[in-house]
C-alpha cells in the first residue's frame, strides 16, 4: 500500500518559517505511524526530527498531532488513518512551543507536574519500625497492611496512576489555550493520585489549598477534551471534579470556583431556581461585581439581566428533601 506522510517541518536554525513536506512510502499491514516516521528517517530523510523510545505506548515520548488529533504515533495504525483521512499528516503537539519539527519544549509541562508536589507528604523518615531490614537465615519480614479497598480510588484499568505524561491532554486542553499558567489536566490528575493515596499525610491540606488558587482546579472548564484524547483511557477531568468535591467537603472555599458552586447550591436549595445575580454576588462579592459594571451595563441594554426576585417553584419540598438526602449520604 502506497501512502503519503505530510510532516510539519521547522528548524529555526535555518528555516524562516514552518512548512510541510510530503514523503511517499510503502506500508506493511500492521505499520504504525511511528514505523512510518522511522522508515523515512532511516531510508530517505535523516533530518526529520521527532522523539521516540519504547514504541509500545508506555513511555509517552512520541505524542504528536496526527491528522489534527493529539495521539501516540507508536500506537496509531497507518491503515486506519489512511482509511479515514487518506493521508498521514503529522504536526507538533499544541499548547507547547516548537523546538524543531515534531519536537516541542516540555519544560513548562514538567514544571507544572513538579508544582503539585507529586509525592507522599508527611512521611516520617527512618522511624525505628520502618528501618530497612535485611533478613537473616530463617527470618521473615512483616509487612504493613493496606486493604484493597483503601486503594480503590486509584487502582483499576483506567486510573490516574497509569498516566504516562505524554502531554496529549495538555495539547488538547481548552483552558491551556487561553491561560498558559493553568496547571493542566495531567498535573491535576497526578494531584488527585497523591491526595487519594491512603499513605499520604498532608495534614493541613496544603496541596488542595494551593490547587484551589487561581490556575488550579477551578480553572477547568469541563470541556472533556483530556478524557477524549487520552491514549491510556484515563479521565483527568473526572479526577478534577473529585478534587472539587474534596475541596468543598474540606471547607476550602476561598476560591471563586468553590464559591460559585456553593452559591448555585444555596440558590437551588432556597428557591429551586438559579438566582444568577445572587450567585454572581456570592462568587465575586458586591465589590467584585463593581469591577464588572461595564459588562453588566451592556448586558442590561440587551435585556440580558435576569430578574432579581424569583418565585419558589412548585415542588420545592422535593428539592429540600433531595438536599437533605445528599447531606445524609455524605455523612
Amino acid at each position, binding site marked *: 500500500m502506497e501512502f503519503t506522510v505530510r510532516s510539519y517541518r521547522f528548524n529555526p536554525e535555518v528555516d524562516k518559517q514552518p512548512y510541510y513536506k510530503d514523503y511517499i512510502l510503502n506500508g506493511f499491514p500492521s505499520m504504525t505511524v511511528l514505523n512510518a516516521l522511522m522508515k523515512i528517517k532511516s*531510508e530517505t530523510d535523516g533530518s526529520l526530527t521527532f522523539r521516540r523510545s519504547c514504541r509500545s505506548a508506555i*513511555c509517552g515520548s512520541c505524542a504528536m498531532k496526527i491528522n489534527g488529533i493529539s495521539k501516540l504515533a507508536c500506537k496509531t495504525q497507518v491503515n486506519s488513518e489512511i482509511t479515514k483521512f487518506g493521508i498521514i499528516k503529522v504536526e507538533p503537539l499544541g499548547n507547547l512551543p516548537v523546538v*524543531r519539527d515534531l519536537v516541542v519544549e516540555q519544560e513548562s509541562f514538567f514544571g507544572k507536574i513538579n508544582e503539585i508536589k507529586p509525592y507522599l507528604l508527611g512521611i516520617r523518615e527512618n522511624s525505628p519500625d520502618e528501618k530497612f531490614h535485611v*533478613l537473616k537465615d530463617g527470618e521473615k519480614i512483616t509487612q504493613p497492611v493496606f486493604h484493597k479497598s483503601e486503594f480503590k480510588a486509584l487502582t483499576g*484499568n483506567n486510573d490516574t496512576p497509569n498516566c504516562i505524561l505524554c502531554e496529549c491532554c495538555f495539547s488538547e486542553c481548552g483552558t491551556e489555550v487561553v491561560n498558559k499558567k493553568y496547571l493542566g489536566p495531567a498535573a491535576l490528575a497526578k494531584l488527585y493520585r497523591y491526595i487519594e493515596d491512603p499513605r499520604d499525610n498532608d495534614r493541613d491540606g496544603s496541596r488542595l489549598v494551593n490547587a484551589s488558587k487561581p490556575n488550579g482546579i477551578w480553572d477547568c472548564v469541563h470541556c472533556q477534551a483530556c478524557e477524549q484524547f487520552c491514549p491510556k483511557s484515563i479521565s483527568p477531568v473526572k479526577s478534577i471534579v473529585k478534587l472539587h468535591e474534596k475541596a468543598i467537603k474540606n471547607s476550602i472555599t476561598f476560591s471563586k470556583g468553590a464559591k460559585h458552586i456553593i452559591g448555585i447550591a444555596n440558590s437551588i436549595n432556597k428557591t429551586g431556581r438559579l438566582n444568577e445575580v445572587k450567585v454572581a454576588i456570592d462568587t465575586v462579592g458586591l465589590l467584585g461585581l463593581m469591577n464588572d459594571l461595564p459588562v453588566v451595563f451592556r448586558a442590561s441594554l440587551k435585556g440580558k439581566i435576569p430578574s432579581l426576585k424569583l418565585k419558589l417553584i412548585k415542588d420545592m419540598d422535593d428539592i429540600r428533601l433531595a438536599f437533605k438526602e445528599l447531606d445524609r449520604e455524605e455523612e
Partner: protein
Amino acid sequence: MLKHDVVIVGAGLAGLRACVELRKNGIDAIIVSKVYPTRSHSGAAQGGVNAAFDKDDSWESHFFDTVKGSDYLGDQDAIEILTSEAPANILDLQKMGVIFNRNDEGGIAQRPFGGQSFPRSCYYADAVGHMMLHGLFDNVLKYKTKILYEYFVTGLSVNNGRVTGVVTYDIKTGKFEGIAAKAVLFATGGYGQVYSSNTNALINTGDGMAVALRAGVPLMDMEFVQFHPTTLKSTGILVTEGARGEGAYLLNSLGVRFMSKYAPKAMELASRDIVARAEQTEINEGRGVDGAILLDVRHLGKERIMERLPQILQLSIDFEGVNPIYEPIPIRPGAHYSMGGIKTDNDGKTLVEGFYSAGESACVSVHGANRLGGNSLLDTVVFGRRAGISIAKYIKDIDYGDFDGSLVKRDEEIFERLRNSKGNERHGLLKTELQEDMRKNVGVFRERSLMENAIKKIEELKERSKNIALDDKSKLFNTDIIEAFEFNNILLIAEVIARGAVLRKESRGAHYRNDFPERDDENWLKHTLARLNGKGKVEFNFTPVKITKFKPQPRTY
C-alpha cells in the same frame, strides 16, 4: 565546566534508586539522561518484581531458584544479598509511594513467574515498571534534584586510574560539555537494539557499556543474551511472563501444549532460556504457525484478562491486530535482556576507582547465564540503593581529580567529522543489517561457523561505518547524529557478544551451542571479562565464580 560530587548517568530504576539514596542524605548528585527520566525503558516492565513475603515462602528458596536459574554462573554472595534484601527493598518502595496490587489479607499480592518455586512476583496489574519508575522519579523530584535531560554521554574521563567525570552532548543545543565529578555512576541500561526482533526501547543501545569499554573498563559475561519466549510476532513487543504466570498456554500448530516435552513439571513456567529454545525447536521442526508459536489466554476468561492483563490485551490489539479474549496471540522469542555488563562488586564499584554501575548496564553478577523474570527490577533497586550508599561513603573524604579536557575535544571532533562526512552509507540501514545478522547468527541457537559469519559481517560494517554521512547538519536537536553515535555503540557491543560467544565452548543458560550442547563445569564455570586493547581489539580473560552454598547440579524443570 560543570562540577558535581556525583554524576548519575541514566534515569531508569537503577539510576533513580541510587539518586534517592544520595539526595536523601543531602549529597550533591545530579542526573544526566538522554531522555526525560519517565521515558526510560524501565517503564516498559510489565510483569513483576520478586521478593519472598509469604509465610510459606522463604528468601532462601528465592536464593536457590536464582542460583539454579543462572545455571550456576551467578555469584552466590551477590545473589544472597539480592534475595535477602528483596523484601525490605519492596517495602521501601511502597513507603515511597509505589502501589502494588493487594491480596485478601491486605499484604502485597504475588503471582507465579518462570523458574520460581513459589508465587513471589509483586505486581501492579501488568505495568509494574511504569508504577515503580514514576514512583521513584517523584521522589527524585521531592529531593529537588538537578536533572540534565536530553543530554547524551559520549565519554568517561579517566585520570591516573581514577574516573573524574563525563563528557556530555546537549541534544538541544549541540554543545559538548565536560562535567567533573568525584564519582560517576552508569545506570545506562541494556543493548536490546543489537538484535532485530527485540523487546527493548529504541534507546537501548548499550551506550554506557560501550563508553566504559572504550575508557578501559572491562565488561563481564557479554555472551549471555536473554531471548524472551513471548514477544509479538510482528513487532517484538513483549507479552509479559505474567501472562503465563496467570495460566496462559503455549501451543504449536497442532494445538499441543508442547512444553510437556521440554519441561514436564514446570511446563510454560520453566526458565526463559528453556522455553525460548523449546519454541524455536518447534518452529524449526515445522510445528510453528507462520514462523510463530501461539500464546493462548482465552481460558482465563474476559474478566481476569481485563483485570490482570489489561496492557497485554491492548498491546495485542494495537500491535498485532489480535484480541486475546477470542484468539491466541502469535509470538516468538525476541532479544530481551543483557545478563552481561560492566563488572561491579556487590556495592556497584567497578574495577576503576570512582566509577560505579548498577542495573542492566552492570554485571554483579546475580543473573549469571540466565536471568529469572522479576529479578531484574529487583536488581535495579537492590544494587541501585547499595551503589548510592557506597558512593556516599567514597566521596566523603576525597577531592575532585583532574578532568581530562582533551576528551571533550576528541568527541567534538568525532561529531564534527560525522556532520561533515561526504560518505555514502546510511547508519539506519547499516543498523538493520547488523540486527538481522546478529539474530540469525548469534541468536537462540549458536554454532561456530554461524558466529564467525557474524564477526565477518561486523568487521565489514566497521569499515563501511567510516563512510556514514548524515542528512542533518544542524546543531539544534539533531537526532540523526545521536543515532549514528548509537550505531557505533551497538556495533562495538555486538562484536563483544559475538567474540565472547565463539570463545565459550559449552552450553549454559541462554548461551546454547549446537556444537557444544552440554554444560562444562570443569572448563567453563567462570566469568568472561572483555577489554579493548590499545589497538581497539577485544581481548578476553577469565575470573572465577563465587560459590558459597549451592554446588552446581544438573538443571531440570
